[in-house]
């Protein structure tokens, strides 16, 4: 499996983070069990696609391919999701995120969701980030349109410590309707 290694940043596998703040569920077996529950709530595969290259404000959101809309989507809190989720016109991606937060009872994670594929993990100046985005737009403008796939699986990763040491724990299938 190919891994990124650019700009002196760490090696990591290409991915979209569905939920990156699972700190209250320390046991892998429990995470697997809850992710299986999440998969049944998502119920059927859904498609994700990307729109543009953008920069972000910190190390893990340095230079990215972002979905449309290419800005953060503010998500209600876990408690609001329980009450109003079925009435809100969230798209499938955001819905999967809200379901994930609910299953994992994540009340302290980000209340904004920004689905993206990171291309670089690094602490760079805004000028450097913009230079990399320009390079991507100049030579790989076709890439976001090609980065589209049907989400049929949820991958559980152990992401403690340096990104180059992260390991895949399990892959959970999203059931077909």
């Amino acid at each position, binding site marked *: 499996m190919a*891994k*990124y*290694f*650019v700009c002196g940043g760490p090696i990591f596998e290409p991915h979209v983070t569905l939920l990156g703040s*699972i700190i209250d569920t320390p046991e892998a077996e429990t995470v697997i069990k809850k992710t299986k529950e999440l998969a049944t709530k998502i119920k059927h595969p859904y498609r*994700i696609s990307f729109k543009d290259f953008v920069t972000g404000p910190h190390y893990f959101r340095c230079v990215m391919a972002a979905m449309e809309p290419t800005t953060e989507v503010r998500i209600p809190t876990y408690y609001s999701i329980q009450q109003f989720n079925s009435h809100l016109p969230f798209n499938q991606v955001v819905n999967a995120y809200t379901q994930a937060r609910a299953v994992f009872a994540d009340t302290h994670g980000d209340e904004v969701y920004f689905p993206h594929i990171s291309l670089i993990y690094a*602490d760079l100046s805004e000028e450097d980030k913009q230079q990399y985005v320009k390079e991507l737009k100049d030579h790989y403008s076709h890439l976001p349109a*090609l980065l589209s796939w049907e989400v049929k699986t949820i991958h*559980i990763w152990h992401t403690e410590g340096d990104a180059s040491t992260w390991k895949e724990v399990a892959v959970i299938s999203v059931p077909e309707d």
Partner: protein
Amino acid sequence: MPSQKYMVPLGLLSCFARPFLELFESRQSGNEDSMQQTRKFSLWLRPEPSSVAHTELVAAVKAFSAKTSGELL
């Protein structure tokens, strides 16, 4: 033994070096703060290794990495 006239006083050297050391320490500190954002477990979505999305992503990143003096493992 260097000639005394070419020796730089340690205090003066320290004075010149301090801003660079502080800049380095600041960058290191920022990186550590970033690293502390890593979590024990994360849920990821990934294209199938045999998919067009995965193939194109890897190919483009490989080329992009070469342009930015990196390498793809």
